[in-house]
């Protein structure tokens, strides 16, 4: 039998990934370590405020750092290679590999400067918050079988409503209360057209975004700017230091010194992760997103389940929108979500339609964005315009299948009509 030419597809993909990793390590050695002229000190700071244990700053020569971490990445590459030969997954060694290359990169990019690692992570989380809300909204919609391109619109509507109501009442809580409702209102539009009128959902989401951008920008220009003191100056939430937890080094300032919106986010993430897989609600949601006719056959009203979930998704994204106004700046400005809804969508896909995956992807994108800001202040060899592109490029790489094949819920985007296809 001459079967030796049979292709193991997985092995093929793995060997391609290893090749890419090898190339990156070489680039890391040459670009970050060999090419730069003289070595400068890089300082990594870990302290923000009054944590219990003060971690010392860590100073390293940029060339030494880049060489050592490139070497470390090579080591992890060898590990990964050995794992691959055994046919194991690359998960952990690949992660360690990425971290090493990243630190080598930082040594190069921040040569001669000081980087506050804690500040970087904290800022990353800050930027990721609307992304997490948005991607969870997408998750709930798409797991029930409705594609949600309108995340941008939901965020924007939430931000607008929270800002205006917060200003009028001079009460940030009032703003926080109406934001989810505004998001749900957009969802109502999405659900009605997608489910009742079976409009193509990608096109629909796009058009809804245009509508919301138009309406909020129009109102902002016509009303908010005429009397900003009355319409557009909401009080904002202050940060709440969680006793004890906020004093933990590194973790404390990042996760436990945040506003109420962020703490609500933690709760929502936990709830969605658990309920999606372990509750009646989650079971039905996944059922109508995978094979709606089967759900119908056991007496589930598919379109009702979908309708409800799209509304719930709107509540989540709307709440995330509040973060832009009552959660941070207090004032609404035109198109202030700046495409975050689309990045959130990308995070959802990158995270393979799972809650924790989407959260991780959103955090990664937020982090990349913060890194750009930090590096543009410290000054780096890379133009900041290119740093801005990082999340977009990462997304393209992700959807191109380099991170593994992603599979959407089977009936995502397909309108359901009762009685099948007669």
């Amino acid at each position, binding site marked *: 039998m001459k079967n030796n030419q*049979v292709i193991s597809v997985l*092995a093929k993909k793995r060997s391609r990934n290893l090749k890419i990793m090898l190339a990156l390590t070489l680039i890391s050695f040459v670009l970050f370590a060999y090419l730069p002229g003289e070595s400068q000190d890089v300082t990594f700071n870990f302290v923000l405020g009054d944590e219990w244990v003060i971690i010392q700053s860590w100073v390293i020569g940029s060339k030494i750092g880049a060489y050592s971490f490139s070497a470390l990445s090579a080591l992890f590459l060898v590990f990964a290679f050995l794992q691959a030969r055994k046919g194991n997954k690359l998960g952990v060694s690949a992660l360690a590999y990425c971290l090493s290359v990243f630190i080598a990169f930082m040594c190069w990019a921040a040569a001669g400067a000081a980087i506050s690692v804690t500040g970087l992570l904290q800022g990353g989380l800050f930027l990721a918050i609307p992304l997490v809300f948005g991607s969870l909204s997408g998750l709930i919609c798409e797991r029930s079988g409705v594609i949600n391109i309108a995340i941008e619109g939901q965020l924007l509507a939430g931000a607008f409503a929270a800002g205006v109501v917060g200003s009028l009442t001079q009460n940030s809580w009032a703003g926080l209360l109406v934001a989810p409702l505004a998001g749900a209102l957009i969802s109502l539009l999405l659900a009605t057209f997608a489910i009742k009128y079976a409009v193509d959902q990608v096109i629909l989401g796009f058009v809804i975004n245009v509508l919301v951008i138009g309406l909020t920008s129009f109102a902002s220009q016509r009303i908010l700017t005429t009397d900003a003191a009355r319409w557009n100056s909401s009080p904002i939430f202050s940060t709440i230091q969680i006793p004890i937890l906020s004093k933990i080094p590194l973790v404390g300032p990042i996760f436990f010194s945040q506003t109420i919106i962020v703490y609500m986010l933690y709760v929502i993430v936990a709830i969605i992760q658990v309920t999606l897989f372990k*509750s009646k609600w*989650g079971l039905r949601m996944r059922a109508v997103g*995978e094979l709606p006719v089967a759900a*119908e*056959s*056991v007496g589930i009203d598919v379109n009702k389940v979908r309708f409800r979930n799209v509304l719930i998704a709107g509540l989540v994204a709307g709440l995330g929108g509040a973060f832009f106004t009552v959660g941070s700046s207090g004032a609404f400005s035109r198109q202030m979500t700046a495409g975050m809804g689309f990045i959130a969508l990308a995070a959802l896909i990158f995270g393979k339609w799972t809650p924790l995956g989407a959260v991780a992807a959103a955090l990664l994108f937020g982090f990349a964005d913060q890194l750009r800001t930090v590096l543009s202040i410290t000054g780096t060899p890379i133009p900041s315009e290119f740093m801005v592109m990082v999340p977009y490029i990462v997304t393209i790489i992700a959807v191109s299948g380099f991170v593994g094949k992603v599979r959407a819920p089977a009936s995502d985007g397909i309108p359901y009509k009762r009685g099948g296809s007669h």
Partner: protein
Amino acid sequence: MSLELRAITKRFGGLVANDAIDFAVADGEIHAILGENGAGKSTLMNIVYGLLQQDSGTISVDGKELTINSPLDSLAAGIGMVHQHFMLIPVFTVAENIVLGHEKTGFFGKLDLATAREEILRISQEFNFDVNPDAIVEELPVGIQQRVEIIRALIYDAKVLILDEPTAVLTPQETDELLNNLKKLRESGRAIVFISHKLREVKAIADKITIIRRGKVVGTASPSAEQSELASMMVGREVDLKVDKEAAKLGSEVLNVQNLTIQDHTGRTLVNNISFQVKAGEVLAIAGVQGNGQSEVAEAMLGLREHVAGSVKVDGQEIIGKSVVDCLDLGIAYVPESRELDGLISSFTIAENLVLDTHMSAPYSKFGRYFPDAVKKVAQERVAEFDIRAQSVTDTASSLSGGNKQKVVLARELSRPVKLVVVSQPTRGLDVGSIEFVHERLVAERNDGKAVLLFSTELDEVYALADRIAIMFKGEIIAIVEPSISREELGLYMAGVSLHAEVSA
């Protein structure tokens, strides 16, 4: 418990799918509904089950009239259904599928699967079903998936069990097991409705037979009735179940497949190292239960699959690695398994569909220009030749009936100069008239000296057309036999039991 339907009528637009149908089944009885594809059997049962609503007529259970608006109502009335296309979520476990729609929840709304697991194991033991409640459904063989549907109906205490074409996906042995299980269920006092177009099975299991044709009840029969009698009632005329076939005049070898292996994109092996040859003037039928790798082999014959290794030669020329166009140019006609998905473009006109593969050659095209008038003209000839019933060649393909759609595909594929005809499930879902047409046409191609490779899960079709039969099981060809083989033996092969008799490899 008894179920009674009176004067059920259902229209879809101008089409009357069910015309005043009366039907009744009592407990401890198996009542078969016999009818060809498209006769309206499934529509009727979907009405009973609440997936569709009747325009008029009544449904009563134990003499009480019911309004059934959704499956919830029918489930509450004790009606359970085993669907032709399983109503199971592929990515769910068995237990998750069973609780879906009837979820019990515990603390903070946590899903309770433990009770369901126990129930599944209990029923599984009672009927010797061997179903693991924690298995993922899509990883189970279809026979087991069907049992999951039966278990579901039993857990929800169905007193009337409706089975819609339950044997379509089963091996003969699995079919026998199913029929035995149905008898057990009958003994337990349940009423069973058995929907099928297969005469043999209906005769074997039913206590009563109701025959439906074009949406109407045309009569009832007892299981002792002759097959030919049942067939003519079902079709509305005398049916000759045999296809006239001259003895094969074998020519040179046209198709030679050696060590063909096919994987999917995740690296799972779907077809494992198979070899066979087809000569000019013969029909090689590849039989087997759905999902044993036949579809993949068929697709590989036209270069439609990736991750393929081995050798496929047509007239001595290797086609692995070649594009679809090159394969077509080599003289391969290809009738895909799904005419709706792969055979036709439903929004295109009939004329356009007739030139899908030849639109870039004369007389339809010159230097990249496309001449719609030339296409129309030739289309009119084809429509006449293949007896395609359509108002106009500029109507969309979606306006055609299933049989006429298949004729369009055949007309397109057989109008080119071809050496090898690859057909996959060519008569699935067709009425008897169209089946006869397709079969005659295929035999004509064989007699004309072409090599015909037929993939079929219908044993009747295999016996009617094949000069040799290859049986596929789990991605391998486990035997190639003469059509004189008995149904029992063939069934054993299809179930993966390797016998001694390999005729020629």
